[in-house]
């Protein structure tokens, strides 16, 4: 893992879910909220206030890029967000970190290894 990325980790749960939601495709705010709820089976929901606060921070850090609606027929109030290369690298690094956490958990907590996800 790059040393420059280490300083950016670990990501907060909200940041991790938002970046993960944007990993597959570009989305607008409401779609990100829905995708986060879907990814976590409804266990983690992010509200618009938290979402836009985090998106502002992620945009400022260069993890995410904001752009207007791609098609003219869409609501002009919507803003779309895209994961940048840096954002993707940070997300990958955090997923790697979580993998080691999970590995340790499986070693020390046998119930974690056998439980259904």
């Amino acid at each position: 893992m790059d040393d420059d990325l280490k300083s950016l980790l670990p990501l907060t749960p909200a940041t991790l879910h938002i970046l993960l939601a944007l990993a597959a495709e570009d989305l607008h705010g409401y779609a990100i909220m829905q995708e986060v709820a879907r990814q976590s089976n409804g266990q983690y929901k992010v509200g618009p206030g938290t979402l836009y606060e985090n998106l502002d921070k992620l945009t400022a850090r260069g993890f995410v890029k904001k752009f207007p609606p791609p098609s003219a027929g869409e609501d002009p109030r919507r803003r779309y967000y895209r994961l940048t290369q840096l954002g993707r690298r940070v997300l990958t690094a955090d997923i790697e970190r979580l993998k080691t956490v999970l590995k340790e958990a499986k070693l020390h907590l046998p119930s974690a290894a056998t439980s259904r996800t």
Partner: protein
Amino acid sequence: MSGFIYRLLIACHSSSFRENHGDEMLWVFGECTPRETRPLLADALFSLLRQWTLHSGAWKFLAGGAVSALLVLGCGYSISRSFNWSLIWGAQRHSAILALYSEPPDPAFNEYEFELQARQAIGMLTRYRQFDEDRRAVHRIPNASRSDAPFGRNSENHE
């Protein structure tokens, strides 16, 4: 009613946040079912609190106020109760005024202000302690504990 409250909460956010996301947040609120309105209102409220405390740097002043209040409570323990309350009120008002009329976020400025406020709070405490000592000297209040004082007076009366 909930729509009005939500609009109000958005209006209380910082102007840049409101301009960038206000319309979209209202649109999301309009899309949600009535069951989801309460969590959305709570989210907007927490977002507002975070912005006005953590992000604006006002937390430093609030923390300064809390620390100064604790200092006052600790140092003013031996002073009379009414005087103690006036000290606490003075420290809190001092912190609140600084917090309300402070400049927009600028880390260097806020740190300087925080240090200044801490120095002022300590200075204020020192002055009040001096004032209390002077007051005791003028009124010749014995430095003994309160439980001893009535006993002392009673013993004088018996004589």
